[in-house]
């Protein structure tokens, strides 16, 4: 379950025009044949997802998919983001327990929570942002009864003492040094 974005298609155009032409062009709108009067917003979302989903990360956010294939609340997730588009080599990593997923098409986002230096830290990531390089599920959850795990803020229990979280923070720091 690894999703990596390739940066050959990143949209930093350097031509002298006053506008940018997206690298991935659909000559005709992505309208399904059964749609006689297509909803413009649906077509726009379909195209935006087709553009942003260069590494198949949209499979992580299909609600009806079996839990093994998708991202679930309670999973331990590792995210690598580039710091800026003008310098894609510099990256930042973060791993934590996914406590909420907001499925909103191209605006899909999720919240990761972790304890860093004894301080609770929450990070919200836009799933299809061009700055997100990699989303990786490190450990599937065993048993979660809710879609939103905000109770972990008050009653964390032993959630953030998982080995995967500690391991990941070590490996992430080592990979970041290599880069």
């Amino acid at each position, binding site marked *: 379950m690894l999703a990596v974005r390739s940066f050959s298609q990143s949209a*930093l155009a350097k031509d002298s025009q006053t*506008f940018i032409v997206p690298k991935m062009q659909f000559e005709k709108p992505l309208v399904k044949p059964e749609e006689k009067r297509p909803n*413009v917003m649906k077509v*726009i*979302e379909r195209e935006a997802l087709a553009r942003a989903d260069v590494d198949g990360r949209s499979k992580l956010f299909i609600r009806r998919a079996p839990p093994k294939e998708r991202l679930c609340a309670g999973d331990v997730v590792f995210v690598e983001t580039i*710091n800026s588009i*003008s310098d894609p080599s510099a990256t930042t990593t973060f791993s934590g327990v996914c406590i909420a997923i907001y499925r909103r098409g191209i605006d899909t986002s999720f919240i990761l929570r972790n304890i860093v230096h004894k301080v609770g830290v929450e990070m919200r990531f836009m799933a299809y942002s061009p*700055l997100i390089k990699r989303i990786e599920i490190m450990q599937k959850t065993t048993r979660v009864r809710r879609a939103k795990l905000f109770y972990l803020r008050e009653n964390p229990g032993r959630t953030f003492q998982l080995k995967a979280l500690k391991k990941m923070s070590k490996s992430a720091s080592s990979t970041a040094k290599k880069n």
Partner: protein
Amino acid sequence: MFSLLFGKRPGQSVCSSLRALQNQLSTSAAVYRAKLPHEKMRYAPPVTELKLGIYTPESRRTGIIARKKGMTGMWDEWGVRVPVTVLQLDSVKVVHIIKTSNPNHPRLQIGCGVRKEKNTTKSLLGHFKAQGIEPKAKLFEFPITPDAVLPVGTEITAAHFVPGQLVDVTAISTGKGFQGVMKRWGFAGGRASHGNSLAHRTPGSTGNINPGRVYPGKKMPGRMGGKSVTVLRLPVMKVDTALNCIWVKGSVPGPDEQYIKVRDSIKLVKHRLFPEGATVPFPTYISGQSADLPRETIARVGGHDPLIPRAD
């Protein structure tokens, strides 16, 4: 003259002077009536054919009526997320060139959408038939300069707008019903505690004892929303010629699917209407004459990468 000739007949002279007065009155009335709006000389610019012109900073292009389709997000060239509203141009056409008393200020009547013939009033249907245009759902007039006049029947497409330009959007805001002063006018309300009794959200005093009355225009509870609101200087982030949509940064008043007015921005202190070096489709984008465009064009934000902190 009459009274001079027959000077010794006073009755006649009175009669004639009355007549003269009447004449005078009638002539002055005619002069006065000539100044009435409906008797003014009215001009309509002579439009021969649809051809490209040269845009000058003094030129003012026509606005359009579009349909608000909904909101979504996009990322600009630096990877910064931009919230956008999608506006669709649903068969926008020039319906009528309005005659005005000033030849330098013509107006274009623009129509948008489709209306069934059976749902159109006869008077409006006659107007559409006289112009040779199918009935439109919405009509509005936009003031323009004489060089930006378009012939009747010209279709205006999304390519009329340049990605990166600024537009003003006028629309009817969402009706919020009868609201109190805190929501409607931003009053502070009363205290939450410290002995406050039933006065948490009240407007308080409405004036002094001295005039003994409430001044007209006093801000009070009442109907909120449902009024025409203009949002100034929204950048056009993207133009989609296949879907005939423009993407405008930020929000636009009112609910989805409602008709709204979009025009080139007019209040431009410290702002540029068009991005530097852009080719402006003037008076509008004409397929065949204007340069071909790709299906989608995105505005270039430019400047410094906002995600890299500056040294200075």
